[in-house]
């Protein structure tokens, strides 16, 4: 067995071990340990990605002494390795970019606790990406929730505590639904690993036994994940949780945490249920409707905000809507567009949060629409980052957001049911106009020459934030202009995900 095959497991275990170790370290050492661990996990994922691309196949890595139908497994393929690599580097850049604010926002004695949570979050995200066992997936969903809650509340304001409580309540509702759904699925299939579960489900659909419990279980799972990943109308916790956290937390929460759950949902669709059965029980139509609603209403809510960090948070709701809309199309092209949008949105949103925090000096007083006027003249790099992030979200050519919108439009044309195609295209157009209204407006606002005196706050220009902003812009451009290999990898990964894609 090649040694590289162990790397996914190492990349999960490394942060899990380094988390407890950083509890006895000073904040500064914990920070460096955390950076190192995230970087090493990223490199291990790169090696895994190269390995699976070279071999052109996937492999199952059995955990513990018991073989396949009983024991626990992780599964490694192109899509998993690609997503893991991407998540690690986005997390690293967000941490670097938000470092100045992390230092100011979090009391000295609590800094190491922050990095424990970050390690735990990385570990659970990677486990969610790689797991081949649904119950392990559930356990890591909960670990992810706990870590994310820590990231929200660490700033210690009343509003953060409240946001963390609201986040926990909504998340626990979601994970309760996921748990009961998995129990029902275990009851009717007798398995927890994905492949045997899928075989049992195909048999159930052929024999027409237990089709109702199956539908209920799939529905509950989707609603649970939808609550946790803030699909409209379950997004009530989003603005507080993203808007008032410290910079690195906001960036990571909006770009990675919700995406981890969505990745598990993709695995659930492809590897557990099968996309044709999803279509048969019409779950995709329901997700399509909610995705479209999210695209429109998320943007409408964003327009109404005066606080720009809340505006960006609401825009996340709209972007999550895009991803679910792609699921709802339930074609190969739709799914590829969704996965690509996960990557595009992750870079764009992290960039926006880091730039905004630099522009507003990390304080909410300055995150107000009026106070930000002309801020780009003080913080040139942050201004540029905000502009690029905004234009990417709107979908200006050359940037990642444009490419994903093109793929969404192509996917919509490929659907042969007419109303769905029309609705998707119209919603894409409306949502783009709404996006442009608030993002372009805000970009013009920060580049408008000053009418009131802007007082720079305690946090000044930081080199680390500049590095992060420049790298994020580069990633965004690379994704926007050189999307072909990424799309090819995503397609290979999805084909490997079960070879059950039917192009309707």
């Amino acid at each position: 067995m090649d040694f590289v095959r162990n790397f996914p497991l190492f990349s999960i275990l490394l942060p899990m071990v380094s988390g407890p170790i950083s509890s006895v370290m000073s904040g500064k050492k914990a920070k460096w340990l955390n950076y190192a661990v995230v970087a090493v996990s990223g490199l291990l994922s790169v090696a895994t990605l190269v390995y699976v691309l070279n071999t052109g196949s996937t492999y199952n890595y059995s955990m513990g002494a018991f073989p396949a139908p009983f024991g626990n497994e992780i599964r490694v393929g192109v899509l998993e390795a690609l997503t893991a690599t991407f998540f690690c580097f986005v997390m690293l850049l967000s941490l670097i970019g938000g470092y100045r604010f992390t230092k100011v926002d979090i009391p000295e004695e609590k800094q190491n606790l922050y990095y424990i949570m970050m390690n735990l979050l990385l570990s659970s995200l990677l486990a969610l990406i790689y797991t081949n066992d649904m119950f392990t997936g559930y356990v890591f969903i909960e670990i992810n929730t706990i870590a994310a809650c820590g990231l929200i509340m660490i700033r210690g304001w009343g509003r953060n505590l409240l946001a963390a409580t609201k986040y926990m309540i909504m998340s626990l509702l979601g994970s309760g639904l996921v748990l009961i759904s998995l129990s029902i699925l275990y009851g009717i299939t007798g398995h927890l690993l994905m492949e045997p579960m899928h075989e049992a489900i195909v048999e159930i659909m052929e024999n027409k036994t237990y089709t109702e419990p199956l539908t209920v279980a799939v529905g509950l799972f989707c609603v649970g994940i939808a609550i946790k990943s803030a699909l409209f109308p379950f997004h009530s916790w989003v603005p507080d949780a993203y808007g008032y956290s410290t910079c690195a937390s906001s960036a990571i929460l909006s770009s990675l945490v919700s995406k981890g759950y969505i990745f598990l949902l993709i695995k659930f669709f492809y590897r557990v249920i099968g996309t044709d059965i999803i279509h048969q029980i019409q779950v995709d139509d329901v997700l399509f409707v909610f995705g479209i609603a999210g695209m429109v209403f998320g943007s409408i809510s964003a327009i109404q905000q005066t606080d720009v960090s809340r505006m960006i948070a609401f825009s996340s709701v709209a972007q999550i809507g895009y991803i679910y809309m792609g699921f709802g199309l339930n074609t190969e092209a739709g799914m590829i567009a969704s996965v690509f949008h996960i990557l595009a949105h992750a870079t764009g949103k992290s960039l926006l949060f880091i730039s905004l925090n630099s522009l507003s000096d990390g304080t909410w007083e300055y995150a107000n629409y009026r106070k930000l006027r002309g801020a780009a003249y003080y913080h040139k790099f942050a201004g540029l980052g905000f502009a690029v992030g905004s234009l990417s979200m709107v979908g200006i050519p050359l940037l990642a957001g444009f490419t994903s919108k093109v793929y969404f439009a192509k996917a919509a044309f490929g659907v042969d049911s007419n109303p769905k195609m029309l609705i998707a295209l119209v919603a894409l157009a409306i949502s783009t106009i709404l996006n442009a209204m608030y993002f372009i407006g805000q970009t013009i606002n920060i580049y408008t020459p000053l009418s009131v005196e802007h007082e720079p706050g305690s946090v000044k220009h930081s080199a680390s934030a500049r590095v992060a902003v420049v790298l994020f812009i580069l990633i965004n451009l690379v994704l926007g202009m050189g999307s072909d290999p990424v799309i090819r990898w995503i397609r290979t990964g999805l084909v490997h995900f079960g070879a059950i894609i039917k192009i309707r």
Partner: protein
Amino acid sequence: MSELFANYLAVVAMVLFGIGFGNLLLQKNLIKKIIGLNIMDTAVYLFLASMGYISGRLAPIITDGDTDARKYVNPIPSGLVLTGIVVSVSVTALMLALTIRLYRRYRTLDIDEITLLARQEHNE
């Protein structure tokens, strides 16, 4: 109707799940929300445990060298219940800790009142 009586444990579990879910979602008092959370999780354990139990069989612990699988109940649901209990204890602890911090700050457990107070604090 007869199916409901035959599977009465599953029915009770679902009713309890509904009660717990409703409490977690709708109660204003944070402690009552946490109680709801625990009712919801316990309902799932009842559901899992009832699924794994086969009447007349033993717990899957081999004492007299008898390895015939037909004598024992399915051990996996019990394992899932144990894992679930660990998860639910940790999230309950986290929720209680959050509740204590909110109570110390705002002297109330009503989530709507806390929201109002936090907004006032923010605007000052």
